[in-house]
């Protein structure tokens, strides 16, 4: 065993007065934290194995369990924090790259929390969404520059292909493989019921889900897994994934152990082989190359489906977005540095990329300045946590937002950030049949629908308060935003004034 360098991060606390030894915790923990000692008729647990996913806490029928920080600490040091020291020990032990999951949890500013919304008083009436019409529909795609008329003077419909959504929220790309079949089914069914879209991610589309095509965005990533003509034509839109907020600049790696059965078939790669998405698309080294892929995809689909290009929010995001807006793409999706992932190197997740609020504001402004804002719609993702974030994002210039983490949380995710271990106790980020069955899509899709309906109500309430009765009127309406505790430069980039101004 040698020296045990790292003390467990969490402690599982069992209230012996409330525990009835029903062993539900033991049966439900894939990490084998809990154990029943029959000779002593009592439950014991090994804190070191606990990932703090709260499965046992949530299922304990007597509320006998809770999980708290273990509290063990090295000598306090503002520079060498417990986390920094533990990570160093771990690497000295293994010699490996540190892996993490989900979005960056570090203490960087959350600009959404430093932006406040406006409301009407006295001189301009607010609107009650329960009594008056309020439009939450949005349409994504390029807008025609000119009105064209035929020889009789009638308008020619020159509207490029659009996506129509009942509200400005979609489920972001999460591949079949990184999440389970049941998670995908929950997302697909919820999207259909809500009149929004979900996204296949880069793992192809399981044949069972082609029926949800009208509510599906099919993704084409650098690994080109599961991409074929029928796949491209099955969705409502095609997304080219150039980057991901959780890991800008690097590709993906789904271990061979997860490439089993249907996942192998869907991805069109042999069972047991690692699914490696290269960091770049090997055929894209310029905007011109990107344009070729955009038009290849449009050709395959008869120019009937909008093409989305998804990028991570990085330093030069404005210039990149400007290029994409000229590439023939219909929609740009930007993923902020807080965006989630099923597995990402810790150092990349926590140190690469920029906040989505700043990326969105600067991209929207740049495209306006260049007169090409109507060439594309903008979708933003990377930690949209509530309806307030949606409203702020739309007011900063987004046409729509992507939610990934929030959607998974509706399905049970407790942000334990252990997806890469493949033993998700909530049946989401795993392919083990005993675990995936824990997510019943009948329940999962209902919870997603509930969440989105709740957000839609709140969005309407907030818009009504501002005296706005449609998403279109809120879009890019930065006069409805004020910064709080932001410096001049931040306000300038966000294009908003400070509270009190």
């Amino acid at each position: 065993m040698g020296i045990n360098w790292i003390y467990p991060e969490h402690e599982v606390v069992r209230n012996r007065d409330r525990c009835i030894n029903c062993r539900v915790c033991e049966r439900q923990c894939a990490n084998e934290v809990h154990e029943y000692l029959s000779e002593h008729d009592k439950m014991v647990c090994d804190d070191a194995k606990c990932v703090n996913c709260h499965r046992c806490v949530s299922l304990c029928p007597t509320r006998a369990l809770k999980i708290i920080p273990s509290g063990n600490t090295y000598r306090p040091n503002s520079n060498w924090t417990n986390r920094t020291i533990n990570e160093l020990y771990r690497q000295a032990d293994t010699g490996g790259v540190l892996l993490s999951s989900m979005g960056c949890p570090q203490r960087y500013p959350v600009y959404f929390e430093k932006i406040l919304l406006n409301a009407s008083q006295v001189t301009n009436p607010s609107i009650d969404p329960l009594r008056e019409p309020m439009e939450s529909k949005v349409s994504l795609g390029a807008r025609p520059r000119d009105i064209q008329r035929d020889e009789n003077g009638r308008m020619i419909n020159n509207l490029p292909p659009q996506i129509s959504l009942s509200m400005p929220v979609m489920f972001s790309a999460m591949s079949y493989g990184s999440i389970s079949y049941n998670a995908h089914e929950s997302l697909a069914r919820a999207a259909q019921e809500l009149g929004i879209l979900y996204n296949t991610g880069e793992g192809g589309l399981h044949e069972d889900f082609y029926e949800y095509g009208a509510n599906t965005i099919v993704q084409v990533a650098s690994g080109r897994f599961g991409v074929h003509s029928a796949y491209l034509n099955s969705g409502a839109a095609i997304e080219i994934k150039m980057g991901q907020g959780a890991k800008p600049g690097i590709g993906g790696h789904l271990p061979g152990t997860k490439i089993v059965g249907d996942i192998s078939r869907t991805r069109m790669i042999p069972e047991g082989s690692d699914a490696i998405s290269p960091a770049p698309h090997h055929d894209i080294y310029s905007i011109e190359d990107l344009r070729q892929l955009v038009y290849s995809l449009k050709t395959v689909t008869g120019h009937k489906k909008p093409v989305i290009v998804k990028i991570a929010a990085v330093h030069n995001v404005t210039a990149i977005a400007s290029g994409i807006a000229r590439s023939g793409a219909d929609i740009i999706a930007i993923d902020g540095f807080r965006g989630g992932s099923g597995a990402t190197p810790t150092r990349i997740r926590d140190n690469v990329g920029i906040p989505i609020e700043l990326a969105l504001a600067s991209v929207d402004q740049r495209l306006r300045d260049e007169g090409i804002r109507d060439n594309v719609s903008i979708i933003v993702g990377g930690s949209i946590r509530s309806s307030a974030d949606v409203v702020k994002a739309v007011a900063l210039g987004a046409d729509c937002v992507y939610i990934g983490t929030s959607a998974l949380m509706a399905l049970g995710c407790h942000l334990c950030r252990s997806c890469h271990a493949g033993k998700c106790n909530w049946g989401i980020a795993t392919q083990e049949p005993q675990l995936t069955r824990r997510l019943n899509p009948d329940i999962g899709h209902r919870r997603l629908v509930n969440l989105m309906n709740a957000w839609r109500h709140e969005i309407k309430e907030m818009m009504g308060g501002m005296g706005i009765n449609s998403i279109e009127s809120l879009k890019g309406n930065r006069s409805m935003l004020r910064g709080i505790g932001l410096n001049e430069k931040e306000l300038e980039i966000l294009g908003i004034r400070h509270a009190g101004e």
Partner: protein
Amino acid sequence: MKKIYVNEQWCLGCRLCEYYCAFAGTGERDMARALAGMKIHPRMRIEEKDGISFAVSCRHCKDALCVKSCITGALTVTDGMVAIDQDRCVGCCTCVLVCPFGAVASTAHGVMQKCELCVQSSAGTPACVRGCPNGAIVFEERGAAR
């Protein structure tokens, strides 16, 4: 008639149903107080083998063998539900022997017990159905009884 059905596809084998069932019979308000240190005698049992699990409870057969075989008339069919009158049960276990589902079992005090769809409680929905974390146990109408 509404009955309890199990979709084994979604059964996790967590056995919460057994505990909610046992708790439902206690009349206590707090499960910890009701069941701490107790051996439970639920009217529903999880059967599991080779990664498949499902909860087994009375099917409320139309032509119930247990009712036919009961020597004291303790078992009756009431409104389509097989009910047991524990005051009349003498604990002969004939019903246990004849039930093809293994859905009748003895209590700690000798007489038999079986699922009576929580009709004694005022909840409306049986406790196992409400307690199942994955919607595997449902209480619904499914055509004619066999």
